[in-house]
């Protein structure tokens, strides 16, 4: 093995920023990636996640900041000298080269001896289970197979870092799940350090060791899947993490980290995530899984309860996703273990600890303690 994978301790991004003609696409990204880690950059389209990845790859020059590997600058190197591998959303296979030659391309560029190229290409193709397609052209393969070729092409170089730009978003749902497992397996067996860009929170949660949530070029939160899932730093992250019920309410009373909020015919006890004072406009986030249909006769003590009328019921495997509307006309997304019928009156219950209260204004939430900026925090 001429190039050994993961040959560093830490890769640091310091204040990395990029603007396009005065428009900020990415602002002050600070992140330290340890060898072997799987990092997901998560956010809606246009949030700067692909910009971040392309800056890291060297395909876009940085406007600010630097990228260091073990304290050595790499942002001054052109893309082809960084020893990173990359997997693209549209596969970006060379259409005129066979699968084999696609995978061998990078090794040839590095002047690896022919015998070794043959061996390593065979190894890489075996890894993604494409041995019998080695001589085909990319156009003859299915989408999933093409993406596996792309992955093989990236990992055959045993790069210091693998970058993946929404590699699964062009695949259909079933293949997406299979490939997700495949990527996880490859990551675990090869120990490749990976930065993975996606807009799919489920994908990010299932794959990554740590997630970076971006919005309009700004980092919203960095943390483990657990942290983000249970304690989103602001309502935007909550929205992204599947807190489908986002209610704009007003704070009535505050008691430590507990508060009572009301509006729209609702009055709920909830948990203040950062800070809130009486009469603040807040946005309250509740996951459909935490807001359940209370079975008749079950105890509701300690729960917030809301009366509502069932409108839409969807079967989702073992449970039911229900959309209900309160008497005041507020729509709520709820989970139920047994199917109510549209038109039924139901009582909904949610524990106060799972009613998360955020400032409605995202800027007012900035610099909050839950956002875990790893390693050095930046004074500005």
């Amino acid at each position: 093995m001429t190039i050994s994978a993961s040959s560093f301790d830490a890769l640091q991004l310091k204040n990395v920023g990029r603007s396009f003609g005065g428009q900020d696409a990415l602002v002050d990204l600070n992140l330290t990636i340890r060898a072997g880690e799987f990092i997901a950059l998560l956010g809606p389209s246009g949030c700067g996640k692909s910009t971040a990845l392309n800056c890291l790859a060297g395909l876009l020059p940085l406007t600010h900041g630097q990228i260091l590997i073990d304290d050595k600058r790499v942002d001054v190197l052109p893309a082809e000298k960084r020893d990173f591998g990359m997997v693209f959303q549209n596969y970006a296979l060379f259409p005129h080269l066979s699968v084999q030659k696609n995978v061998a391309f990078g090794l040839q560029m590095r002047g690896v001896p022919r015998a070794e190229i043959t061996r390593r290409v065979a190894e890489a193709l075996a890894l993604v289970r494409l041995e019998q397609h080695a001589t085909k052209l990319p156009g003859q393969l299915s989408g999933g197979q093409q993406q596996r070729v792309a992955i093989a092409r990236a990992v055959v170089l045993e790069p210091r870092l693998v970058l993946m730009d929404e590699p699964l978003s062009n695949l259909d749902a079933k293949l997406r799940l299979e490939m997700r497992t495949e990527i996880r397996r490859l990551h675990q067996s090869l120990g490749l350090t990976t930065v993975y860009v996606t807009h799919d929170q489920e994908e990010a949660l299932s794959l990554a060791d740590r997630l970076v949530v971006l919005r309009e070029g700004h980092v919203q939160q960095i943390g483990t899947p657990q942290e983000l899932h249970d304690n989103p730093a602001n309502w935007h992250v909550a929205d992204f993490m599947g807190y489908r019920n986002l209610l704009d309410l007003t704070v009535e009373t505050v008691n430590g980290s507990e508060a009572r909020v009301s509006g729209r015919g609702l009055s709920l006890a909830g948990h203040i995530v950062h800070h809130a004072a009486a009469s603040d406009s807040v946005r309250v986030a509740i996951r459909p899984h935490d807001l359940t249909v209370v079975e008749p006769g079950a105890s509701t003590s300690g729960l917030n309860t809301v009366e509502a009328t069932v409108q839409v019921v969807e079967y989702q495997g073992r449970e039911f996703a229900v959309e209900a509307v309160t008497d005041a006309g507020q729509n709520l997304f709820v989970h139920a273990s047994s199917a109510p019928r549209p038109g039924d009156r139901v009582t909904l219950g949610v524990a106060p600890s799972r009613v998360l209260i955020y400032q409605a204004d995202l800027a007012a939430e900035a610099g909050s303690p839950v956002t875990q900026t790893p390693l050095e925090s930046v004074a500005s």
Partner: protein
Amino acid sequence: MADTPVIDAGRPAVRGAEKIYSKRRKGSGPANRMPGERSLVASPGTWFVWAGIVAFFLFLFGILISVLVDSLGKSWFTNWLPTEFTASWYGEAWSRFELAHVIGVTLIVAFSVVIISILIGVPASYVLARSKFPGKQVVMGLFLLPVLIPPITFGIPLATVMYNFGLGRTLIAVILVNLVPSVPFVIITMTPFIEQINPTIENAARMCGAGMRSVFLRVLGPLLVPGILAAGILVLVRTVGMFDLTFLVSGPPSDTLVVAIYRAMTSAGGAEPRPLVSAMAVMYTVMMLVILVIALRFVNPTQLVARVRDNPDD
């Protein structure tokens, strides 16, 4: 003899069909067509269309075959066909107009124009397809102008400049003036072709460790070959057929075949004998057909006349 019945039989049928069906069409209209019925199967409109096409092609082939028959006829004045056939006009035209030289000039001009316009045009189309830069619109407009403006409009000032520089009637001048529409043509054809090559492929090559040179030689180059072939063959067809611009700067030693035909048709003191010109025209047609047959291996017919993206259903 074989041609006459075709024309005899074809014409009246065509004319008749036009009248009858256009009348019937007004009476019935599309309303009495059953819903879901294939409207195109043998409807009056279809007959009308085919009649028009047949008429057009009778005209076209009439023209082409007239030239051919004329070039083979000994004396053709008052009959459907010449009284006697001969191939001697060809030999005479060949020596009278020094056609070996003329065809040589035509090929040298055409291939030089193809190669130079590709060398200049392809790199420019790469930039126009891939980069955004200030003033890009202006540059694009500049490359579009020679295609939009009538050749005579820029040809006359250009020819004047050529004569001023002492290049009049030289091969170099003929090549240079033909480049003016050809380079923009290559750019206009190649830019969309390069645009449809996914730019991430270049990024992928760079991420595999390929420098700019390798990206161009090993990835982009092979992908561009079909486009370059198509653009090249189109430029070839256009240059061989280009009359206006070549005519403005060429003189007898640097005439291409089309210009030589024109000169023979208009030569002072009464034109050359018609069959002599026809023989030359047939040779020109054969040359064009050969190029056309080669061209159609690489491009579809529509692309020969205008920049249109390839339609797979042709």
